[in-house]
């Protein structure tokens, strides 16, 4: 599902962030991506969301070669992926419902078509009763759940998360990561970047450690 073949990423005038990186993540597989700050975890996820382009190498996701993907095809690709951010990236002037519905609206769904899917996604993250509220009235953990509902509402093939528990206490972090584990058990490929070693040990899933631009499998 996700395949990095000798992927290098560097910025002009700066050191290589990722160097000759190789990785295979199969359909319905979950992996945690760990590493110190500045190791390149976010860059790797940016390559997967096509916010950045690879400098060298081949990066294939769900059969799409991201290295050669044309700009005009990027939106269609992104609609196959769900992304969760550390800072939630919610629209504070819109309701919880509207935030989640956005993913389906950009895909061209009408209000009637998307309604039951939005409600189902909110139920899945335990926010079925909060659909009318605005994000600022919610706790950090609840806001992150809204971000997750937005990322899964279109049942993506791949779910990516960049430090989704970065601002949460350990209990909430566990809840959120358990949620990701549920998604992968239902067939979604999940890649979560985290620096929370305690959660990594608890989850017991495949772990990839990124340091100095290189990936290492951790037992």
């Amino acid at each position, binding site marked *: 599902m996700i395949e990095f073949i000798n992927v290098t990423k560097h910025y002009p005038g700066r050191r290589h962030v990722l160097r000759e990186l190789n990785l295979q993540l199969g359909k319905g597989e979950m992996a945690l991506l760990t590493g110190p700050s500045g190791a390149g975890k976010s860059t790797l996820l940016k390559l997967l*969301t096509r*916010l950045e382009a690879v400098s060298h190498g081949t990066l294939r996701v769900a059969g799409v070669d991201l290295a050669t993907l044309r700009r005009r095809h990027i*939106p*269609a*690709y*992104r*609609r196959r992926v769900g*992304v969760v951010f550390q800072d939630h*990236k*919610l*629209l504070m002037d819109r309701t919880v419902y509207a935030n989640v519905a*956005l*993913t389906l*609206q*950009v*895909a*061209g769904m*009408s*209000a009637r078509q998307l309604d039951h899917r939005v409600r189902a996604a909110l139920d899945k993250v335990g926010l079925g009763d909060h659909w009318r509220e605005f994000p600022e009235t919610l706790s950090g953990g609840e806001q992150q759940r809204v971000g997750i509902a*937005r990322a899964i509402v279109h049942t993506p093939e791949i779910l990516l998360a960049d430090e989704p528990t970065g601002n949460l206490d350990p209990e909430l972090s566990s809840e959120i990561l358990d949620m990701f584990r549920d998604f992968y058990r239902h067939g979604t490929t999940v890649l979560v970047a985290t620096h929370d070693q305690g959660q990594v040990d608890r989850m017991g899933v495949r772990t990839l450690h990124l340091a100095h631009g290189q990936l290492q499998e951790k037992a």
Partner: protein
Amino acid sequence: MSLHIRLQALGNARDTLLRQPIATALTIIALAVVFALPVGLFTALSNLQQLLASWHNQAQISLYLHDDASPQAVAQLRRQLQQSPGVVAVRFVDKNHALADFQHYAGMTAAIQTLGENPLPASLIVELNPLAQSSSSLEAQVQQWSHEPIVRSAQSDLKWVARLQAIVALGTRAVYILAILLALGAVLVMGNTIRLHIEQRRDEIEISSLVGATKSFIRRPFLYQGLIQGILAGFLAWLIVAIAFAVLQGPVDHLANLYGTSFPLHALTVGEGFLLVLISAALGWLGSLVAVGRHLDNTVS
């Protein structure tokens, strides 16, 4: 493209405008004033041209006829003149009338009587619309008439027609330049407004882009915003011009009365009004398009 996507974008644009009612109203008023100025001037110019066109008794050409011209030849020439472009009326003045006029206006009765016979020729007086054709083509036409077999000579004072036409042409050109500059101003006003909206909605644009929104999906609400504001500004400009002309009608009536005439001002017709709305909508949309093209690329990931 599904209708519901367009309606969704339209609703989004409407909500954005209603969320900032004062800013929206100020933009619409600024645009309306920008549109009302050249439209008001165009309409005033059109009224002036109508007024000048009614001054045909001031633009006359006298064609003096040979004494032996037959009544049939005179009648034929008269018909021919009446069908010429810009000719409002053709009047025949026979020798006796010419003499009577001369005596009346020149007060030279005694001198004329010493001549024994009437030396004044019959003539055809041609009344022209001074703005119907250029002064050069008018001059050429007079030249042509003067070479008619029964015409002895032609007398015209076309210099004032040329001057009048030059003044009207200058006014028209000045209004065109003003209209172009103000249209540019309208595009810039709208462009700047949309730029600010893009800045304010940077997060929304970024998030929409991350969840797979196409560029057209992102830019459509901004274009509709420009279109809506342009349409509203067009209607407001129409209203401003109508009110301005209604307010001016009183003093114009008074002035016309002093000259013993009447001059009803013509504001915009319904067709012209809707053309104004159409143009302002197009300029609003164009301003948005420029801003979106210029600023959205920097925002969309």
